[in-house]
């Protein structure tokens, strides 16, 4: 009997020890692979997370248009039901104000949580957080989180660099643009239009920072690279000539990138009206109602 008791006690100790050891090993193991579900929620939802992300993204768009859905091409018109729908649903094409912008960010945040590998959603959320909600730090935080999920994505680095430039942190912006250039073109083909334009943007930002830092030779090299990509941008030749002559004050770089940041963001705010077939785009103002 005492032998059995002793065996049972040893068994309990051994099992306890094995359990403690497995806990220790588990705690020291490397993190799980990138695409593995990182939470109970993610494991529970599985691939349906992608569908939910798409749904939340659509909701953000719907909130941007204050509940008005996009016009669809329909074969039948003015049925009794369609007339009632027109009367019941929001129909005035207007855009979100500052408070509504916070709601849009909430949807985008949910979408990014569901699919952290969709960089477009993260960039959109960062844009809204910075420009419409006025929370640059939160935009940076969101981009940092996206960087963990997409460590070699140049677009995230580029956007982070742009936000640092907005905040006047030139050194941090320089590091981010360097990283973006190193990661370029990422998943895109090098001859892809978007990738080429992005590379030119990065080179221009980088060149301007070189200029401000007094690195004239590097600044000129950057501009020449852009000219190789887009020979039609002949205005850059004048800029190169000015820099080569040493006549330009270094402070102009900062002025140029401020204009550049503003003009790029205005282009991001373009709205395509779907009320007509011309798809005319314009920048929305506070009084814009169509």
């Amino acid at each position, binding site marked *: 009997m005492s032998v059995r008791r002793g065996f049972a006690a040893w068994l309990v100790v051994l099992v306890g020890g094995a359990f403690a050891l497995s806990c220790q090993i588990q705690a020291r193991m490397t993190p799980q692979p990138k695409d593995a579900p990182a939470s109970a929620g993610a494991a529970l939802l599985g691939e349906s997370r992608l569908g939910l992300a798409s749904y939340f993204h659509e909701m953000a768009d719907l909130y941007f248009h204050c509940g008005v859905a996009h016009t669809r091409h329909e074969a039948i018109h003015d*049925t009794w039901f369609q007339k009632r729908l027109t009367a*019941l649903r*929001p129909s005035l094409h207007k855009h979100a104000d500052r408070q509504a912008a916070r709601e849009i960010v909430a949807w985008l945040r949910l979408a990014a949580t569901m699919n952290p590998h969709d960089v477009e959603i993260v960039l959109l959320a960062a844009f809204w957080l910075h420009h419409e909600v006025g929370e640059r730090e939160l935009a940076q935080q969101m981009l940092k989180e996206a960087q963990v999920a997409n460590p070699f994505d140049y677009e995230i680095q580029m956007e982070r660099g742009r936000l640092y430039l907005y905040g006047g942190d030139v050194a941090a912006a320089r590091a981010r643009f360097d990283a973006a250039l190193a990661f370029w073109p990422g998943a895109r083909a090098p001859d892809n239009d978007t990738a080429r334009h992005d590379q030119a943007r990065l080179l221009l930002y980088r060149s301007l920072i070189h200029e401000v830092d007094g690195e004239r030779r590097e600044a000129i090299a950057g501009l020449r690279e852009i000219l190789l990509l887009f020979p039609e941008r002949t205005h850059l030749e004048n800029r190169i000539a000015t820099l080569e002559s040493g006549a330009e004050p270094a402070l102009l770089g900062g002025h140029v990138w401020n204009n550049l940041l503003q003009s790029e963001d205005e282009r991001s705010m373009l709205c395509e009206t779907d009320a007509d077939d011309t798809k005319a785009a314009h920048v929305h103002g506070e009084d814009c109602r169509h």
Partner: protein
Amino acid sequence: MTRTLTVARVVWLDVIRRKDFYVLLILMALLLVALVSMNLFGLGGVTAYVADIGLMMSWVFTWILAISIGSRLLPQEESRGTIFSLLAKPVTRLELILGKWLGAWSIVSVATVLFYGLVFAVTALHGGRFPGWIVLQAIVLHAMVVAIVCAAALMFSTRLNSDAAATLTGALTATSFLLVPRIPEFVAQAGGLRGGLLLFLYNLLPHFEIFDLRMRVLHDYGAVSAATFMMVIGYGLLVTIGFLGLGWIGYRGKQFTRGSLSGY
């Protein structure tokens, strides 16, 4: 009328005994607590997404509740054999169907009001504001959808067992929710016979999209005009009466035999 109300009361007692919507209320509360506890960067006053997801879940929950209650009421009487004692009483089959429908509809409508109350209470607690009278219109139109779904479930259950009735009602109403509003768009891409079939379905199936005021509520567009509101209610009543009428036609000549009802 009194007999119809008595049947409806028995439906209430049965559902309370089964604790059906207590479970759904708990689920709804858990969902909202989970949503509100999510920290979206600490952005204050962001509550519309909570209300939006909460209202969407209210629609889904009430849809499930309406189908599960509506489709089992008649088959349950038959499987228990209580249909014989029920029909031996001075209750016509039409009154039985109306009573069952009234009971199911009123239960799910009360659940709908509770769901809306819960959603807006949690939203208000976190800085959101009550959208006003439009919510009442939204609840009334939501209750109209519940009336249609309950009527459809009862109609199918007059000739099918509860599982089959629930499945068919689910398929019919889900198609109406998801497919019917987009048929005009699909017709543009489909030609000939397919287009004709789609148009036939467009005119045949119920249109639930005109009862959905969620976007109007959430984006504060104000109340709907009385004329439009009454027209939509009128349409809802017509569809409900249509389903109940078909159910009555299917039920009035139905023969019940002892011993052949165990499948229900």
